[in-house]
């Protein structure tokens, strides 16, 4: 049986680790290389790294040099943030990414997933979905027309060849209010590819609730970056609650 996956989700900007709330107000959170080395020795199951400078149009491509330094460890790395063509995908893989994260580019170029997958395999593509909840209705952040149903979009991403989905609840992101478990389950039940959910987990009880619902992969931002918790503490807590985690 597979172990539950605890995946620290790190944002970088200008070579530094940062953390914000609802994708805004980013604060410096230290050195990415040191943090990743620590997470590696704490036995994080994977590490997710996104460079946000391309979204803010500060740069044309994510920080591959930094990725190269980070990837010297022995923990699986997913890297993204502005990867928009084969050349950048290639740079990411040759700099040490095991998987790449594609998000808004899929809106402009649906075929990009298969193009990259043809060389690197579908398992190496994580497709992102930023979900916004407006008065109980769910939308995709990048969809300005507000007409795409996120469940249908998840199915579409699977069909386009994504090996995995990363779903972020934008309203909850950084708030520590807890994650949207019901909607996570609804997405998960509609696809046959692994789904990583993120946004809102701020304490261990919320994590218990998430895993009790049968979901198996969680992305953690605030809980890791700005708190006294670390992977060792989190995993020991989960083991005491009889969850199947790897220590």
């Amino acid at each position: 049986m597979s172990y539950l996956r605890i995946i620290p989700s790190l944002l970088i900007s200008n070579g530094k680790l940062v953390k914000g709330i609802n994708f805004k107000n980013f604060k410096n959170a230290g050195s990415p290389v040191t943090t990743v080395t620590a997470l590696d020795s704490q036995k994080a199951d994977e590490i997710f790294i996104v460079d946000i400078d391309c979204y803010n149009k500060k740069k044309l491509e994510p920080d591959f040099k930094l990725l190269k330094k980070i990837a010297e460890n022995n923990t699986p790395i997913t890297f993204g943030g502005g990867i928009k063509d084969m050349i950048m995908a290639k740079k990411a893989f040759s700099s040490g990414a095991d998987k790449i994260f594609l998000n808004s580019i899929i809106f402009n170029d649906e075929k990009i997933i298969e193009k990259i997958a043809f060389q690197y395999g579908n398992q190496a593509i994580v497709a992102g979905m930023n979900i916004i909840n407006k008065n109980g209705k769910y939308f995709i952040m990048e969809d300005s027309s507000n007409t795409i149903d996120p469940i249908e979009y998840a199915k579409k991403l699977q069909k386009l060849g994504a090996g995995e989905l990363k779903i972020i609840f934008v309203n909850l992101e950084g708030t520590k209010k807890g994650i949207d478990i019901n909607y996570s389950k609804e997405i998960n039940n509609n696809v046959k590819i692994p789904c990583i959910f993120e946004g809102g987990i701020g304490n261990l009880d919320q994590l218990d609730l998430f895993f009790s619902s049968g979901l198996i992969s969680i992305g953690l931002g605030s809980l890791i970056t700005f708190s006294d918790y670390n992977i060792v503490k989190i995993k020991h807590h989960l083991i005491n609650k009889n969850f199947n985690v790897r220590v």
Partner: protein
Amino acid sequence: MNIGILDYNACNISSIYYSIYRLGYDPKIIKNSNELNDIDRLIIPGVGAAKSCIDHLNQTGLFNEIQEFLATQKPILGICMGFQIFATKLYEHGLSKGIGLIEGEIVPFKKPNLFNIGWQDVEINKKSEIFKDIKNNNSFYFCHSHYLKFNNKKDEEESVGTIKFGTLVPSLIIKKNFMGMQFHPEKSQKNGLNLIKYFLNWSPQ
């Protein structure tokens, strides 16, 4: 000892490179043909899709050179895609012909999920020395959509380690001078490093 890491245009090689470097060796990256002659141990890593990997190996002449290397009895470690290319046929992104050391085909998962991504405990089928240094558990990191299906049930004995993912998935194979791992030892933290170390000291029977 000269350790070669094959870079066939579809790989993340930095983790495997640094894993070996930290164990005290200075591995050589092999990109072209005619570079395998002075290599004592060959590692074929893998993040890739079968068809484009095998096409590349054929175009560069490396496919034949791997076969020749296999015949020299020097140890080879194949990881993930680098393991799967030793089967007879592969079906990822179109049909391609493998090296054929392992009598089996590489076929896609259908259930419970199309992808096996994450950590699993590898069950050891034989009394093998290979896991002797691994204390707590045998968990390793997997990331794949296709798996090895043996042509004959009796060949399953070649599998030293397996996992279950909807079906039985051969995860560690030792045959002649070849060691194949479906999981990623270079991404499996301490447990993985122990296996890499084992391979570097391994004398095939």
